[in-house]
């Protein structure tokens, strides 16, 4: 399985994605840095951050922007690894190999999952670490509300990253059903709105049950995507 995953990375030119993920991480860092220390989110009249309720501190913003970006990134990668492989017929080639179709699909999904999970965790660590380090010298417009010393912080960070990246499988399922890369990416956008956005006071971002449900739904969709492959005709 590990070998199949490595081959997937090689085939899909993983170097390009590493570069893009790194660029994304830098942009996110600069953006959140400006949020905290350059006051771009401050209301010009009052000089305090103009935020939605519950987002007065820095960590919700960090969570929101990193999750959002990497969910879309996962959608894009799933689209190009799997959905477009069906479209440009390289899947026909893959399915002519003496390897179970399910195994091929799982390896492709894992290839994307592992990459994005790693990238998201690293990006978050860099941003949290960077902002914490800078807050010793500069004054942050948002209160620093996290503590990087205890294990709780890291466990939470990893679990959240897992949930976000796994949600990409919902987008994959929709994309595969509609045979469209665009649908995959658009679905990942919609998922962000569902989980992160708020309408007035109404938001699902702080709901603890929702991520659990979404993860279960995502895994169910992932399972469905894989299951149907074995007997389905390739068109």
């Amino acid at each position, binding site marked *: 399985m590990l*070998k199949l995953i490595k*081959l997937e990375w*090689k*085939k*899909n*030119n993983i170097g390009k994605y590493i570069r893009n993920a790194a660029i994304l991480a830098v942009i996110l860092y600069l953006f959140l840095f400006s949020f905290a220390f350059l006051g771009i989110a401050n209301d010009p009249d009052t000089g305090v951050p103009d935020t939605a309720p519950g987002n007065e501190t820095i960590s919700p913003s960090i969570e929101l922007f990193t999750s959002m970006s990497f969910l879309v990134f996962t959608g894009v990668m799933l689209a190009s690894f799997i959905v477009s492989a069906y479209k*440009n*017929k*390289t899947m*026909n*080639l*893959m*399915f*002519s*190999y*003496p*390897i*179970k179709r399910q195994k091929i699909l799982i390896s492709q999904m894992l290839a994307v999952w592992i990459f994005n999970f790693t990238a998201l965790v690293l990006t978050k660590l860099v941003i949290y670490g960077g902002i914490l380090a800078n807050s010793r010298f500069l004054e942050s417009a948002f209160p620093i509300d996290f503590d990087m010393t205890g294990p709780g912080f890291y466990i939470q960070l990893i679990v959240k990253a897992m949930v976000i990246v796994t949600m990409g499988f919902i987008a994959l399922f929709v994309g595969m059903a509609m045979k469209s890369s665009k649908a995959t990416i658009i679905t990942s956008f919609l998922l962000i709105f569902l989980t992160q956005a708020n309408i007035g006071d109404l938001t699902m971002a702080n709901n603890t049950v929702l991520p659990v449900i979404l993860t279960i739904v995502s895994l169910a969709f992932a399972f469905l995507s894989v299951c149907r492959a*074995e*007997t389905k*005709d*390739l068109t």
Partner: protein
Amino acid sequence: MSYILQTNHLTKTIDGKELVKDVSLHIKKGEIYGFLGPNGAGKTTVMKMLTNLWKPTDGSIEILGETLTPQSYEVLKRMGSIIEFPTFYGHMTGYENLKLHCEYMGYYEHGSIENALEMLDLTSAASKPVKNYSLGMKERLGIARAILCKPELLILDEPTNGLDPAGMKQIRELFHMLCREYGITIMISTHILSEIESIVDTIGVIHHGKMNKEISMREIEQMSLAYIELSVQNPEKAAYVLSEKLGLTNFKIVEDGQIRIYDNQVSTQDLSRVLALNGVSVSALAKKGETLEDYFLKLTEGGEKEC
């Protein structure tokens, strides 16, 4: 007689439309099998089922002594195939694409990639990314990939598409060599019979999803496709003479004064003598042969008229 590939009443229905109906193919070990049919006859559909990409609605397939099921993966190791147009990973070079193929097939033999590239004249292009290849080069790389892992059975769907005449000749020779020297059984589909006429041992003709005829080249040769063409002023009288005086039955009047005699017992000398004696003036007399192409057209078009 045991066959390396055999289908029994293979049928594929998609959305109520029968793409392939009741096809029974028989391919012997070590032969080249030409699978012929006009465009849209169902050649690719059959080949997709043979390579397990599509699952048959009805009927069964036996390959290399095994009945194909959705779980048949091991048998794929012993086959090489090109279905429709070969696909590659464009950003990788020709060599890398073949290497990847070896990895997936679980085939590691030193020098096999170089060897395959050389057979298809691609050695100089091997280090270029495939996206810069021409159509013909991609087709040849596809063939290189299909033969790379020394398969026992090659299934090639219109492998000469996009090749120039010289390239086609080269590929034909390559197939002939693979079959004779390595004992590889090859199934080639095409809609142009003349492309493969010289190398095939058996042809199967498919039309409108149905198998029209399966016949070995030897049988075709024995079948008297040769005929004598006769041009006369008065065909009715000539026909009378042919049947009454010469006792011929296997002839037909084609068009204005032309008669084709399929009976190969009678000599042209006898013919002209008897006809002249009976007062039929012959303006032309020639021995002709029906080409395989005509035969093939007759099979496919004839089927259409009967419908």
